[in-house]
């Protein structure tokens, strides 16, 4: 029942029984494809450091090269164990590349594997982040007034200008947050590079999580205004 306290560092090859490093894709002994360990992480899987600034072209090259090694097309005549492993590794590769290729998804994934899941679909995402309370309050008041104008039959010209003006401070916040996220990402990468202590890393991650949640909240607000403008 109890979960292992420390993560394993080796895996066993199901074809020949030899031990293999956890992030190896093929058995060093018999060269057969290895089954996917349950605790595979996307960074290790793609062979890149656990950092937030990744070279997109390099990532794509790795994706293509690994696709050519794992794809189920090339395991049609292999044993059921190998075919299963090929399907698992191909799926993991596709999921990993899809996640790490997008900067936002990359941050979210890092937070998750570092144990700070932002819990995207839960209550936390719907609550107004404390730092944004004042602006959100003002925006909602303004939106309510604009809606009244529209429903009262005012010409589009009258309320569209107000809506656009209401949008601007939020948009400015978004730009500010993107910059902060980039700065935090650079700080995280530097912490990884110099082998910073858990405490230091944790501080960066906490800040990263807060900014990330705020940014998502702002993105939703902007999308809402966009809908109002276009309706």
């Amino acid at each position: 029942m109890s979960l292992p306290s420390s993560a394993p560092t080796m895996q066993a090859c199901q074809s020949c029984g030899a031990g293999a490093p956890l992030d190896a894709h093929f058995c060093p002994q018999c060269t057969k494809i290895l089954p996917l360990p349950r605790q595979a992480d996307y960074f290790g899987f793609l062979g890149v450091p656990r950092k937030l600034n990744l070279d997109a072209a390099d990532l794509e090259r790795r994706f293509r090269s690994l696709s050519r090694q794992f794809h189920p097309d090339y395991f049609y005549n292999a044993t059921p164990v190998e075919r299963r492993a090929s399907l698992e590794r191909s799926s993991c590769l596709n999921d990993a590349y899809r996640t790490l290729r997008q900067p936002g998804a990359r941050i979210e994934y890092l937070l998750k594997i570092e144990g700070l899941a932002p819990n995207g679909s839960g209550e936390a995402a719907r609550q107004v982040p404390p730092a944004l309370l004042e602006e959100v309050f003002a925006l909602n008041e303004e939106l309510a007034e604009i809606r009244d104008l529209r429903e009262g039959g005012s010409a589009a010209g009258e309320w569209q200008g107000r809506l656009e003006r209401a949008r601007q401070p939020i948009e400015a916040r978004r730009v500010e947050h993107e910059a902060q996220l980039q700065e935090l990402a650079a700080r995280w990468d530097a912490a990884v590079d110099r082998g910073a202590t858990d405490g230091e890393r944790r501080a960066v991650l906490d800040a990263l999580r807060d900014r990330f949640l705020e940014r998502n909240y702002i993105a939703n607000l902007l999308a809402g205004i966009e809908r109002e403008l276009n309706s």
Partner: protein
Amino acid sequence: MNGMSKVVGIDLGTTNSLVAYVKDGVPAVIRDRNGDGLVPSVVSVAADDTIYVGREAQRRLLTDAKRTVYSVKRFMGKGREDVQAETGHFPFRVTGEAGGVLRIGVGDREFTPPEISAFILRELKHRAEAFFAEEGDLDPEVDRAVITVPAYFNDAQRTATRDAGRIAGLEVLRIINEPTAASLAYGLDKRHTGIIAVYDLGGGTFDISILRVEDGVFQVLSTNGDTHLGGDDIDVLLMDIVLAEMSSPSYGGPYVGPRFSGAADGAAGPAPEVIQEVRKAVIQAKWDLSEREETDIVITRSGTAEAVPYETERYERHITRAEFEALIQPIVDRTLAPCRQALADAGLEPSQIDEVVLVGGSTRIPLVGRAVASLFGRTPHSEQNPDEVVALGAAVQADILVTGNREMLLLDVTPLSLGIETMGGVTSKIILRNSTIPATGSEMFTTAVDSQTAVDIHVLQGERELVADNRSLARFKLRGIPPMPAGMPRVQVQFQIDANGILSVTAREQRTDVEQTIEVKPSYGLTDEEVERMLVESFEHAEADFTARLLIEARNEAEAVIQATEKSLRAPDFAEIEKSELAAGERQRIESVAAGLRMVLTSSDRETIQKWTQALNDATQHLAEVMLNRSVNAALAGRNVDSV
């Protein structure tokens, strides 16, 4: 090659199907003796249960329409309620229970769409086997195939296609998407690098796929489409016009019935054979207008059954390309929104597309080519035969699978998002559309009451928020959850979409590490048991089909003997022969045996036909010898004269 069973690529189309194979690295379509590569996707079930497929079945649309099924691909993976609006267009019955797989009624028999498709696949299999046998292959059997489907086919439609393959006795190595297959065939010619858009407008379906090709990896970036849009829809527009005109008083046509597209079941209207005659004529006109500026739609009574319910001897209508284009513009326009969506999903502007490739017979229509050119701002390619390129690509993929040829690799995507039903009838997405496959997604489930041991999961496909607006794929029942207080179990459900784009589901309770058993009820699919049963039935029918084939052969032989006999009896010198060479009563005997054979000819008793054929052969043997001698003597006499 020898000693290994063959593998082929099959394009199972709405209108036509093809089979292709790879020889020495080059794909080729397998043709019949006349060089014809297309097998019309038409199946006819005669009153005596004989199954006709292809050209013969297509001919029977004009004589026995109600027993003839075409465009069955439109019904794959569908329920009866999905196709309600269009069943009036078809001569055959569409039945089945609400909320289940629909059935196609032919006479007193009923078939599921995969069974009808299996008849077509079996015909292709036979064609390929006959071809390999003729090539001198020691083992010409074909039991494995790659089959193509529209990229925008959902899980149920893909599964139905795979089931059809199994029923036909084929191991389906892979289901691949038609536009992607086409890109593989194109990629063979040139070492492409860049971004390709494949625009595929076929008989019944439309797909757009955008691919990045680099280092031999064909990676689909996005795909979109409409599985109910194609040449069939153009035919219906033209048929509506013709049938309305034919029934109008000004045309003098006495047939008055509801307009074709509005014809309700059982309502008085033109006979199905007449409708098929009209369909054939408008398709010809459609083809003509791809080559010429104007043409005539001509329908005559000849060729239809005698019970033609309209008395117009001949219907004729002039149509110009301009009129035709105005008529079909809305259909062509419907393809543009999916193209724009696919571009947006790939994060690309039209100007970033390096090449545009046209696939599917309907892209021969000049208006389609112009619309595509103007959307993408470049002239599309159509060097390869748009009817054959998909089958060629399927053959290439089949070759990759069995030979392990690693020159090329196809990375396709799932066309529709996969989700599950959550509280309040809302869909929660688990795997987003345009994710590269194979792909996985997982979701944690728990229980709502103490000691609950089972959980229901409703899986859907589609982009909409509400469950009701998406396509129900299946209902899964998770069983065997260890009894715990409510909310305690943590059941991780893993959704796996494989390289065929087909879903499988596994589940594990995390606290106890117990694998859950899952019971699947596909919403519009056959269960494994049903497919097995159909496979067995198809073997039984294969026996019946074989018997039917022997019967047809016996009849053909009998007819040939009757004809030869009649020819002899009508010969100018027969009277002289009878007087000088034949015994008394010999002619009467021949005539009575021939009459007897004619009478048994329509029976389905092969042995009786063969007995009477033999009897006629025996009865005419003496006559045949006499006539042969006379002609030999005449020839000799001629030569003697010459040699003197």
